[in-house]
C-alpha cells in the first residue's frame, strides 16, 4: 500500500484496467496495447508499479484472473443464448465467432440479456465473399448460420418480452359472431408476442431436429429452402408455428395493422388457389390461429 498514492486519476486507472483485461491477446497484449500505453506508459515487466503482487501470484497472474474471466463469462453467456447454433458450429468454431463478436460489439448494457442482439448482424457483416464459381448473392452456408442466429435470438426475445398471460384474447365465438359484411374492413389486433420470421434455410425444422438429436449427436445441415415461422408465447413458453408463404403474407399484413381484406388479398396473390379453395383454407387458418392465441381482439 502506498503512503501517498499517485497522481493517476481514477478515470485513467479504470480506462487502463479495462483496456488490459478486455484485450484479446491477454494481459501482456493489453498492457502493451496502444490504448493502455497512452493511459499508463509501462512495459510488461513494470506492471507491479500499478498492481501489487501477492505472496503467491505476480501482478500479471492476478490481472490474468480478470482477463480470463472476462471472455470466458461472456462466451458462456452467448452459448446459452444460441445453443443450437453452437451445436451446429461445434464449440470451438462457435467460440471463435463469438470471441470476434465480443471485440466488435462489447456489452454496453446493464443487462446480459442484450449481449447477443447484434450477433446476427456481426455474422452478416463478416460474411465471407462468395467462393470462385459461386454466383454473387447465392445462398450458402454462412446464410444458414445467420438465419439460425436470428431465429434463436427471437426465441429469447419472445420468452421475456411482452405477453398476454392472464389477459383476454380473441375467442372463436367472438370471431364467428363478427358481422360478415364488416370482416374485410376489420382489423385483427395481434398479441404483442407474435413475431413473423422468413428464412432462406429451414432453421425452425433444423432447431427441432437438433434438439431431438440428443447430446453429442448432430442434425444434418439442411439445403436452402424458404421457411416461414410464427413465434408466440403462451403460459410463458415460446411456441413455434411453421407457416406457408401465403399464411406469412397474410399475417405480415395483419401485423402492420392492415384490414383483414387487404391481408387476405396478399395471401390470395401468393397462394395460387381459387376463391373456393382459399376460402376453405382461410377458415382453417383463422380457426387455428385464434385457438393458438395469435390475436387479442377484432375491431
Amino acid at each position, binding site marked *: 500500500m502506498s503512503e501517498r*498514492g499517485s497522481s493517476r486519476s481514477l478515470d485513467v486507472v479504470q480506462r487502463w484496467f479495462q483496456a488490459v483485461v478486455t484485450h484479446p491477446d491477454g494481459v501482456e497484449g493489453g498492457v502493451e496495447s496502444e490504448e493502455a500505453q497512452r493511459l499508463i506508459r509501462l512495459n510488461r515487466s513494470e506492471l507491479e508499479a500499478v498492481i501489487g503482487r501477492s505472496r503467491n501470484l505476480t501482478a500479471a497472474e492476478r490481472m490474468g484472473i480478470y482477463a480470463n474471466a472476462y471472455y470466458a463469462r461472456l462466451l458462456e453467456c452467448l452459448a446459452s443464448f444460441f445453443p443450437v447454433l453452437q451445436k451446429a458450429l461445434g464449440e470451438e468454431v462457435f467460440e471463435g465467432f463469438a470471441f470476434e463478436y465480443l471485440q466488435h460489439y462489447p456489452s454496453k448494457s446493464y443487462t446480459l440479456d442484450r449481449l447477443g442482439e447484434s450477433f446476427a448482424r456481426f455474422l452478416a457483416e463478416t460474411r465471407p465473399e462468395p467462393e470462385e464459381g459461386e454466383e454473387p448473392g447465392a445462398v450458402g452456408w454462412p446464410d444458414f448460420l445467420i438465419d439460425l442466429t436470428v431465429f434463436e435470438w427471437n426465441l429469447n426475445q419472445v420468452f421475456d418480452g411482452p405477453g398476454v398471460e392472464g389477459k383476454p384474447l380473441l375467442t372463436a365465438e367472438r370471431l364467428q359472431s363478427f358481422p360478415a359484411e364488416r370482416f374485410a374492413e376489420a382489423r385483427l389486433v395481434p398479441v404483442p408476442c407474435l413475431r413473423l420470421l422468413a428464412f432462406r434455410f429451414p432453421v425452425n425444422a433444423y432447431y427441432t431436429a437438433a434438439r431431438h438429436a440428443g447430446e453429442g449427436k448432430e442434425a444434418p445441415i439442411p439445403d436452402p429452402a424458404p421457411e416461414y415461422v410464427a413465434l408466440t408465447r403462451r403460459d*410463458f413458453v415460446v411456441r413455434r408455428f411453421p407457416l406457408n408463404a401465403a399464411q406469412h403474407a397474410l399475417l405480415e399484413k395483419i401485423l402492420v395493422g392492415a384490414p383483414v381484406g387487404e391481408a387476405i388479398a396478399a395471401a390470395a396473390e401468393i397462394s395460387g388457389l381459387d376463391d373456393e379453395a382459399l376460402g376453405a383454407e382461410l377458415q382453417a387458418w383463422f380457426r387455428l390461429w385464434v385457438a393458438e392465441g395469435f390475436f387479442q381482439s377484432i375491431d
Partner: protein
Amino acid sequence: MPLPRLGYDNLGLGVGLRSTHFDYILKNQPEVDWFEVISENFIDSQGRPRYVLQQIAERYPVVMHGVSLSIGSTDPLDFEYLGKLKRLARETNAQWISDHLCWTGILGRNTHDLLPVPFTEATLRHVVERVRTLQDFLERPFVLENPSSYITFQDSTMDEWEFISRMAEEADCGLLLDVNNVYVSSFNHDMDPDQFIRSLPHERIVQFHLAGHANYTKYIIDTHDNHVVDPVWDLYRTAHQLTGGVSTLLEWDANIPPFPVVHAEVLKAKRFMGEHLEPAAAAPETEPAMAPGEGETVFHPLHQILAEVE
C-alpha cells in the same frame, strides 16, 4: 450512534432466488424466511421471471441485489437503470436494495464483472457522493457489499476495511458483509480476515452473504458453486457475535443443487449463532483444493435465465 442493522429488520435466513428453483418454490412454498433476487434478471422482464417474482413477493420478504450499478465507475450514474430498480422495488416491496463496492466498466462498456477500486481519498469522495445521490433517488434503504477481488492497486492508501467503514459513515449507507468475499479477498491479498471483520462499523451491517468458492491453492475464486467451508463459517460466527445477528443469505450460482440442499446450507448458520458453540457441531466441509484450471467455473455475477421453448 446508529441502531443495530441501522434499525432494519433481521429477516432471518434467506436464499438467493435462481430460475432453476422457480417451479419448486411455486409448487412447494418452502418455509424460507426471505429471498434475495438479482435485480437485473427482473427489471426488464415481461415474461415468466417477472411473473414468478410477483408470486414470490406476495408470500415472502424480498431484497433486491444488483450487479450493474457500477458505483465506483467514473462514468455517469445510469438513471434509466436506477429508475427501473426503483419501480421493481416498489412492485416487490423490496426491504432494501444492494449492490457492490466496485465498478463494472467505463466508456459506456460493461464487462459484467465486479472490478476493484483503488482505496484512495479520491475514490472515497467519488463513491460517497454517488451513494448519496442514488440514495436520494431510490428513496429506499441502500446497502453496499464488499466484493471478492483478485488484485490490489499500488495507488491504494488505506485498507479495504478502512475504506468501507469511512464510506458507510460518510455516505450514511448500510453494509452487506459478504463473509465469503472477506475470506476470498483476504486469502488473495495476504490479509487477516478476522481483522477485516472486526474493523467494520458493525451497527451498519444490514445483511450477510454466504457462499462457496473454488480454492486453487495459490488463489481463491468466488464461484458460488459449492458448500460454505469451515473457515468461512468461523468468520460468520464472529460477524454474528459482533453485529448481534443480521439477515443472512446464501448464494449458489453454478452447479446449483436442488432447492432443499441450498436451503439446508443456509440453515447451518443456526449452529454458529450460539455463544458457546461445540466445535463438533461445525459444518463438516473442508477446503477443497484444486489445481489451476481444474473444475473451472466462471463466476457469473449476473445469473442468466434461459428461454423456455416448446
